[in-house]
């Protein structure tokens, strides 16, 4: 099978089909708790293993995460916060903001959008996503949970930095 990435052609068979991924996103899932953001020197990251509700087992390789890139020292810059659903190292869903995103089919989306994985275009295809009211790492993480059918088993007190 031929896979297209940008202007490049790469011969490779994707590890899963679009319907497998769509099903994985739609099925009921949970995480045990929202972990506090990890300070990773250059960014903050919230990440949790996702479990399947049906059998209460972890879905191997499925992680929900949000990342906040620390701004340049002394600069205001653009807020760089995003959420992602990663499956076996691939971003199968993602929420972030670009001023302008060109889709592989020729359409374009301005502003906040959701990345939708497919074997042909990987995460390059996006659909508009409502602008989150709060642009903190926790707010984006929660937006991702809601969007991708993941509930939180137990809520945790928020003692972490408000980023």
């Amino acid at each position: 099978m031929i896979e297209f990435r940008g202007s490049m052609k790469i011969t490779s068979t994707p590890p899963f089909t679009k319907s497998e991924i769509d099903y994985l996103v739609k099925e009921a899932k949970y995480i045990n708790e929202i972990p506090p953001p990890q300070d990773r020197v250059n960014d903050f990251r919230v990440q949790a293993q996702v479990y399947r509700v049906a059998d209460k087992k972890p879905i191997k390789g499925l992680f929900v995460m949000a990342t906040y890139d620390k701004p340049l020292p002394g600069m205001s810059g653009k807020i760089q916060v995003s959420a992602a659903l990663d499956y076996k190292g691939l971003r199968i869903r993602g929420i972030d903001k670009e001023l302008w995103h060109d889709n592989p089919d020729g359409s374009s989306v301005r502003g906040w959008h959701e990345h939708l994985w497919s074997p042909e275009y990987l995460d390059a295809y996006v659909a508009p996503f409502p602008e989150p009211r709060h642009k903190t790492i926790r707010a984006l993480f929660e937006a991702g949970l809601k969007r991708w059918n993941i509930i939180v088993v137990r809520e945790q007190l928020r003692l972490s930095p408000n980023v």
Partner: protein
Amino acid sequence: MSENKIKSAVLEKYLRTYRDLIAVEENEGGGVTLSFPFHFASRHRIEITVERAGGRVIVSDSANTIGQLRDAGYKVTTELRERLAQIAKPCDIRIVRNHLVMESSEERLGGDIQRFLEAAKTIGDVYLVHHLRVPNEKQISAEVKEILQERHYIFKEREMVGGEIEGHKMDFYIPPNGTPGLALAVLAAQNTHNVAQVWGFRCDDIKRQPQNKRLRVGVVYDTRGSVWSEESRRILEMRADIAIPGDMVSKELVSILESKGVKPHLG
């Protein structure tokens, strides 16, 4: 139409279109973000932020390039950052936190933005163009499974095989039954040398377990999405009874199994 008129008409059309393809947004706290019709190999546009700081003008990518690599599955390690810094240095770009940063001035800004765009695309594409984000583990496993089924091997998938020290999950397990059995793992990874070292240990550990005397330990390593150095391959070949490159599975698996005495249970 004279030659000069054609030139200016073409140039004008191009510049008007180019201008229409640029999006600009003011940021809170000053500065602007611009989105250009320049795309990384991952199809994402290149966005840059321009901000005044004291008497200088700072051009940055708002951590977008490293973000692209991260989304592509790269672990942003110190080593990766050092390599990116080396690529960026000739373009007068530094890496601060996750941001590509260029110091410019009011006079040089136009030219510097163009240089920054080209550099950001080069830096990103060095990794994005050649990076296969899709490991072929599943495809290789399906291929192995089909071959084993066709040849009437009786096997289990995802089976724990005991070692001298600990148990190891193997993708395929053919129990010994008068003839040698097989424990086979399919390996696809980015960090291939580490994987080779780990599996070198695992193969040894399985073979040292006295109960596994009649068990052959094998690995099939992905060669389409993963790059294995000579040393990594040597580790696998020396430590496993069977080490087959992923692209040779259909040609070699059956003959190698037979040469190692692993025979089908039926037929």
